[in-house]
C-alpha cells in the first residue's frame, strides 16, 4: 500500500458509545476487503477535504473483514467524522506503528489498565489474549473513567465479565446516584489485585497523567520497567516518519511507537514540554 494515499472505506455501522465517543465499523470500497493489523497499531483516517487524524484500531485482530475504530469527537477532523453516517466514505492509511506485546506476554499474567478513551486501543489486545486464553496466566482488566455515563464498550465489558476466567474491575472518578460500583482513581483497583511482579506483563493506555501515577504505583509493587508497556500520543501529520511532528526525544511515535516498553522511554517520560 502506498503510504501517502488514503484508501476509501465505506462506513458500515456507526455505534454511539457515549455523548462524545462513537465506534465506526468500516468495509473496504475496493476489492480485497481484509485489513490485517496488530493490536496497538493505528490508521490515519481521512475526511474528504477536511483532514486526517491518527486513530487507534479498536477491533479484533482476528476479524479482518471489518475495520473498527472508536474515537472521540474533540477536534476539527474528529468532529467531522462524528457527522458521518452509514454509507459515507472515509479514507484510511495504515496500519502504522508498533504493537502491544501480546505474543511476548504468553506464559505471564497480564494486567491491562485503561483510562478513559484508552480502553479503545487496548481492546484489540484484550480480544487477542482471549482468543488464546490458555497461553496466559491470570488476566485482569482495570478500567477507570470519568463517570458511569462515560464507560465505553459496556456490552463488551459485561460479556467479558461473564467469562469466569478474567477479572474485570471498573471505577469512576465521579459517581452518579445509580452507580453502585467503585469510585476512585484506577490505581485504587490495584490494591485488590494481587500479582507476582516477576511474571506479570502490564499494558497501560490513557491520559499521560494517569499513566504516570499508574506506573508509580506499579513500581511500588515491585514491577520492573521491562514488564510495563504504554501507548504514547503526539501530533501526527504523515504517520510514516517524514513530517517530524511526532518526535519524542529520539523516538518517532508513528514508527518507534505508539506502544513502548517503559524501559525505552523512561528517561523521556514526565519531562515537561518534551
Amino acid at each position, binding site marked *: 500500500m502506498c503510504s501517502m494515499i488514503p484508501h476509501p472505506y465505506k462506513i458500515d455501522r456507526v455505534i454511539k458509545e457515549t455523548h462524545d465517543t462513537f465506534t465506526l465499523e468500516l468495509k473496504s470500497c475496493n476489492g480485497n476487503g481484509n485489513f490485517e493489523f496488530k493490536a496497538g497499531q493505528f490508521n490515519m483516517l481521512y475526511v474528504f477535504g477536511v483532514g486526517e487524524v491518527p486513530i487507534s484500531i479498536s477491533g479484533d485482530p482476528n476479524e479482518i473483514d471489518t475495520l473498527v475504530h472508536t474515537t472521540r469527537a474533540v477536534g476539527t477532523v474528529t468532529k467531522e467524522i462524528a457527522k458521518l453516517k452509514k454509507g459515507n466514505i472515509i479514507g484510511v492509511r495504515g496500519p502504522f506503528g508498533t504493537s502491544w506485546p501480546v505474543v511476548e506476554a504468553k506464559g505471564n499474567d497480564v494486567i491491562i489498565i485503561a483510562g478513559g478513551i484508552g480502553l479503545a486501543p487496548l481492546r484489540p489486545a484484550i480480544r487477542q489474549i482471549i482468543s488464546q486464553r490458555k497461553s496466559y496466566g491470570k488476566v485482569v482488566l482495570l478500567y477507570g473513567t470519568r463517570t458511569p455515563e462515560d464507560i465505553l464498550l459496556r456490552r463488551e465489558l459485561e460479556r467479558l465479565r461473564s467469562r469466569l476466567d478474567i477479572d474485570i474491575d471498573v471505577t469512576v*472518578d465521579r459517581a452518579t446516584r445509580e452507580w453502585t460500583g*467503585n469510585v*476512585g482513581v484506577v490505581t485504587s483497583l490495584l490494591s485488590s489485585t494481587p500479582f507476582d511482579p516477576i511474571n506479570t506483563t502490564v499494558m497501560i493506555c490513557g491520559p499521560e*497523567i494517569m499513566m504516570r501515577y499508574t506506573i508509580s504505583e506499579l513500581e511500588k509493587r515491585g514491577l520492573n520497567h521491562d514488564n510495563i508497556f504504554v501507548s504514547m500520543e503526539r501530533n501526527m501529520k504523515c504517520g510514516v516518519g517524514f513530517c517530524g511532528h511526532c518526535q519524542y526525544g529520539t523516538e518517532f511515535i508513528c514508527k518507534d511507537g505508539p506502544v513502548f516498553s517503559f524501559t525505552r522511554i523512561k528517561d523521556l517520560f514526565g519531562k515537561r514540554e518534551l
Partner: protein
Amino acid sequence: MDSLERILKDHPFVKNLSPDHIQLIVGCAKNIVFEPGRFLFKEDEDASEFYIIRTGKVALEIYTPEYGPITIQTLGNGEVLGWSWLVPPYEWRFDCRAVELTRAIALDGKCLRGKCEQEPKLGYELMKRLSSVFEGRLYAMRLQLLDIYSSQEPKQSK
C-alpha cells in the same frame, strides 16, 4: 498468638511498632462483619471507632437533598478507614455503607486516644502512620478532582 494479633502485625498500619504498642492496639481491637447494605457509620454520629478493612468493599457517601446519597469513594482490602476519631468534635463527616460482605477490624478510637495522651511515643507512631494514609488518600482524591478523562480544558465557569 491470638488471631487478631496475627492479622494486625502484618498490616502496614501496625507493622514495626514495638511489641508493647502492638499489644496496646490489639487490646483495643475486635473483629467485625458488615453485611451488604449495612452502614458502618453515619454522618454526625459519634466517631469512636476506626476500621482496617480485611476483605470486602465499602462506599463513602454524602447525602444530598436533590439526588439522595452520592458515593465519593469506595475502599477495599487493606484500607484504613476513618480518622474523625482523632479530630474534635469526633463526629463522622460521611456515611459509610458496606457494598459487599465486609470483614474488618474495628479499633476503639476513644480508648486509643486516651492511651496516646498518656504515652506520646505511641501517639507519634500512630500519627506517622495515619499521615501516610491521609497523604495517599489526598493524592488520589486530587487526581480524581483533576478530571483527567474530560475532553474539556480546565476552565473557570462564569
